């Protein structure tokens, strides 16, 4: 085991759980901006996730330090000394000090947005002041713009620049769609598991009284599954038809040997199976089924990000990458659970909570 292999595994684990964190950030923003009632029951889950931003930033520091060591160059080839003439052209953007500065800016933007929104939601629990919701909408709508822009540069920095010759304009938005998908699956798993296996309140009541909630989560997962497939296919088809060496390297590496199998599994299990299951109304009515589909989606998100990130590495240790994923996962989930324990289960005084809990109940009266 070399330091490089360790760094690769660390980076993979970090990118995966960071993507889930950002999914929580993105859905929190989306929810507050559109003020729909669909995400009210999972708002505290999203908040517990987005509150891990500072931890994830601390966890990135070892990677940032690595940039200034000789091993860094083996991970990110754009790090000095740069001899390749194409990469020399990119130093205006890809250079260590600017890279570090950008990370600070991203996290500062994300964290300030989240603290304003989380605090306002918590304040409203106490004060019941309906103006808080308007305040959050006013912050979250432009917040989405800032979020999407920063995400674009962030994934370019973290993942795309692992192969500094390669570029694809849809890549970051593709990651964003995947983040949304995996966060929805994650939240759906938590809610359905608690209601269906653990018979915990208030989840049992929510699922029983408001069938719209599971339908909405199912339909959102369906929409994101389709978007994921649409973005993936677009990127593939355009690169395949162009057939330019600087771009096709991405797919060539990912269709060698076992990678090809993983890629094929993604088409079937990240798209086809969940797509067909989620089309059916029955899946969206039965907590056990919905849990199963969400679990499948989440597992395939792991495979997909593995398939995307790891082939960028030179001679990685696969077991170590999996260990990196698990170690980060243990840390993330522990802190996530702690955040959950420290907050109320539902945003109690949001005026739309009643709507979210009982819309189904009144319509069936």
């Amino acid at each position, binding site marked *: 085991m070399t330091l490089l292999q360790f760094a690769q595994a660390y980076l993979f684990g970090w990118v995966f759980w960071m993507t889930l964190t950002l999914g929580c950030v993105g859905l929190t923003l989306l929810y507050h901006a559109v003020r729909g009632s669909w995400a009210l029951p999972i708002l505290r889950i999203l908040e517990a996730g987005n509150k891990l931003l500072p931890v994830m930033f601390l966890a990135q520091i070892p990677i940032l330090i690595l940039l200034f060591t000789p091993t860094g160059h083996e991970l990110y080839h754009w790090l000095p000394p740069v001899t390749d003439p194409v*990469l020399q052209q990119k130093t205006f953007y890809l250079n260590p000090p600017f890279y570090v500065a950008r990370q600070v800016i991203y996290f500062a933007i994300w964290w300030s947005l989240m603290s304003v929104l989380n605090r306002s939601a918590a304040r409203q629990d106490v004060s019941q002041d309906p103006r808080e919701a308007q305040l959050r909408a006013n912050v979250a709508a432009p917040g989405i713009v800032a979020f999407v822009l920063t995400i674009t540069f962030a994934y370019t920095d973290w993942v795309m620049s692992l192969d500094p010759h390669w570029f694809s304009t*849809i*890549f970051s938005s593709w990651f964003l769609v995947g983040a949304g998908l995996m966060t929805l699956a994650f939240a759906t798993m938590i809610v359905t598991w608690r209601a269906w296996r653990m018979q915990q309140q208030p989840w049992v009541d929510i699922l029983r009284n408001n069938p719209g909630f599971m339908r909405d989560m199912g339909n959102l997962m369906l929409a994101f599954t389709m978007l994921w497939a649409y973005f993936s296919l677009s990127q593939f088809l*355009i690169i395949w038809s162009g057939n330019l060496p600087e771009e096709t390297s991405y797919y060539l590496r990912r269709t060698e040997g076992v990678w090809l199998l993983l890629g094929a599994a993604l088409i079937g299990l990240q798209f086809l199976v969940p797509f067909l299951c989620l089309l059916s109304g029955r899946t969206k009515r039965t907590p056990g089924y919905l849990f199963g589909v969400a679990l499948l989606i989440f597992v395939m998100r792991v495979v997909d990000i593995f398939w995307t990130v790891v082939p960028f590495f030179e001679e990685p240790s696969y077991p170590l990458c999996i260990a990196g994923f698990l170690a980060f996962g243990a840390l993330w989930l522990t802190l996530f659970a702690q955040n959950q324990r420290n907050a109320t289960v539902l945003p109690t005084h949001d005026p739309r909570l009643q709507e979210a809990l009982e819309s189904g109940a009144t*319509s069936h009266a």
Partner: protein
Amino acid sequence: MAVSNHHGSSPAGDGLSELLPGEHSYRSLGERIGSIVLNQNKHRWPWYVVFFIAFALLQVMMLSITWLLWRGVGIWGINIPVAWGFDIINFVWWIGIGHAGTLISAILLLLRQQWRNSINRFAEAMTLFAVACAGLFPLLHTGRPWLAYWMLPYPNVLAMWPQFRSPLLWDVFAVSTYATVSALFWFVGLIPDLGSLRDRARSPILKGIFGVLAMGWRGSAQHWARYETAYLTLAGLSTPLVLSVHTIVSFDFAVSIVPGWHTTIFPPYFVAGAVYAGFAMVLTLAIPVRKWYGLEDLITMKHMDWMAKIMLATGLVVFYGYICEAFYAFYSGNKFEIYMMTNRMFGPYAWSYWALIFCNGVVPQFLWFPQVRYNLFWLFVISQVVSVGMWLERFVIIVVSLHRDYLPANWGMYYPTIWDWGLYLGTIGQFTFLMFGFIRVLPMINIFEMKDLWHRIIHRGHGRVAHAGDGRHGGAMAPGTVQPLGSPAADVEG
């Protein structure tokens, strides 16, 4: 609101009465909308002025086409290297405009968005007429439109078979499917209203025409049940079309290796651009028409607000596309990509790039402010700017990318001729001509859906009916299965 005070057994705030304010009855709604068709005295001077101008422009189109067929595409400004000019720009522009209609009629229906009800008929007609304008351009660009059927894969003795790997061929299928499904969707949605007009018309000739078109519609419970199934099926079929058509249009460019065309963000960014341009056109038409025909309580400011918000959101996606294009061109380190971007920004066509950024990047940001969204004048102005911006976007992508590619020896300039402009303005004439003709002969707002909306406003919170409405929210769907024989349906006679 008066209504919710009278009947409000459920708390106000479901937003329904905001979409149909004031006092109405089933009869008055039928009268109001139907009379625009049946009472020709309703049409005042604005209709005649617009129709006359449109008709004049339509003649310009006819003239441009005639001369084109006589002399060939050499009368256009296209050349080598810019072999695609106004023809493709205008094709993409028109096809994009149509997308708002499909989004409103199909996706917003499936998403149970009530506010689509009063604008869907109108927007669907717009889709059809925009596709009719779009289709002309590639057809005429072939130079020999009478041989257009060669693009279809049919067994022939010419030993010819279309190139299935080319997105240009996919376009043939995508656009013709789109036109067919849109026409069906529009017509099926019209049937109950045609029945209503048949019953309301006095003149035997009109009765006959509407009677044939209504296809024997009687408004029975069975008819409504069949109708619902057909309409939902068509909505399901149309939904992927919103994405597929413009995705394939974006592939026309993206699968090539021309710098400025070959970029992976194109599909979603083209689709967003299409919806963006489409809503600009819906607003362009709806703002004057609702004023001329006094429809302010059917197409409310709430509708305008929603459309403006969608325009803002899709406009932001489009602007994000521009940012990605610019950033990754420089990030790529590829000298052709970098040159393409520098040429866009500072080359001979730099004016078009900066005008584009102004129209699609800067101006729509005013829509963040509710004061602007609720001001019809500014909303109208912004819609015009957006339409121009989306046209410029295609100009920048097509002409500016083509005129300087890999080989400096191949570089050239593109100047449209009077015939390019003649055909372009002519299609605007054709579109307006068809739109205003439509307003005069068919109900531009869905009569029965408005009755249904009214039904749900006055019966809110009454257990059984609320359940029926709630279960199927989709405005279009309501009359039928659960309710007793047609509240709005039996009311067709009015």
